[in-house]
């Protein structure tokens, strides 16, 4: 999986994390590591460009959620401890859509994974880059 980083400026600085490839158990920790690196470098609002992600398993959901927690300033649960990270996902679903981590253009197949697990209500999904940036 390729992970590319761009910076954009809307009402606030927004980091665009562009993922390319297939997101699964073999690489989701790489995505979380990159997000941690960005957070420590000052990123507080992140847009995940999912347009080039043509596959996402439940491991990808763990990555998305961990990044959302990071951007909120919370410590994500250790994903290597297992899928207990979903515990926090469920708690967060009740608190509404995440404000500091949003998705751009996920493919319908990827959206289907979000939908099957009820996680689509948890993430703000945009189709337009400029509108996504200005939404932060």
């Amino acid at each position: 999986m390729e992970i590319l980083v761009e910076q954009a400026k809307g009402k606030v600085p927004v980091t665009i994390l562009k993922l390319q490839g297939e997101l699964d158990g073999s690489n989701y920790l790489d995505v979380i590591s990159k997000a941690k690196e960005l957070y420590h470098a000052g990123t507080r609002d992140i847009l995940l460009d999912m347009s080039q992600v043509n596959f996402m398993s439940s491991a990808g959901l763990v990555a998305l959620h961990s990044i959302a927690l990071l951007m909120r300033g919370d410590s994500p649960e250790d994903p290597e401890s297992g899928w207990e990270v979903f515990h926090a996902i469920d708690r967060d679903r009740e608190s509404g859509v995440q404000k500091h981590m949003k998705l751009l253009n996920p493919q319908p197949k990827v959206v289907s994974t979000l939908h099957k697990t009820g996680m689509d209500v948890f993430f703000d999904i945009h189709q337009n880059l400029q509108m996504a940036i200005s939404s932060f």
Partner: protein
Amino acid sequence: MGNGLLLLNSAVLNDLEAIRSFTNDQIKSLDISELDTYDILLATTEAVTNILLHGYQNQPGWIEIEIRTQDNLVTILIRDKAPSFDPTQVPPPALEIPLEERPLGRMGVYLIKQCMDKMLHRDLPTGGNELTLVKKYVSNYV
């Protein structure tokens, strides 16, 4: 009717993409809809991921994947030599209970059940597990 077999003596998570490629190669001639194809690839990925992470504790392990196609059915048999575990007995994630009470791996199993029409488990006589996943697919030409 077709049959395909993939044998990995020391499978690891980095093999997931190759496993999806093998699975896709076996079913692409069937004119299965894109969504059904994706469901099959997702279910296979979740099943193998569970075996590698939980059955083999993220250590390399033996996995055999057999794919049978017949009469608008795709049947995927996944065999391993990990300790006995029957994922068909994993209850669905109940959103009304605290997730802290849920066992690990349930989301992957839940996705398998969402994607496939049938999931069967049996302990292999020589040890290990055989998981059978069945999907009745919709042809692109229907």
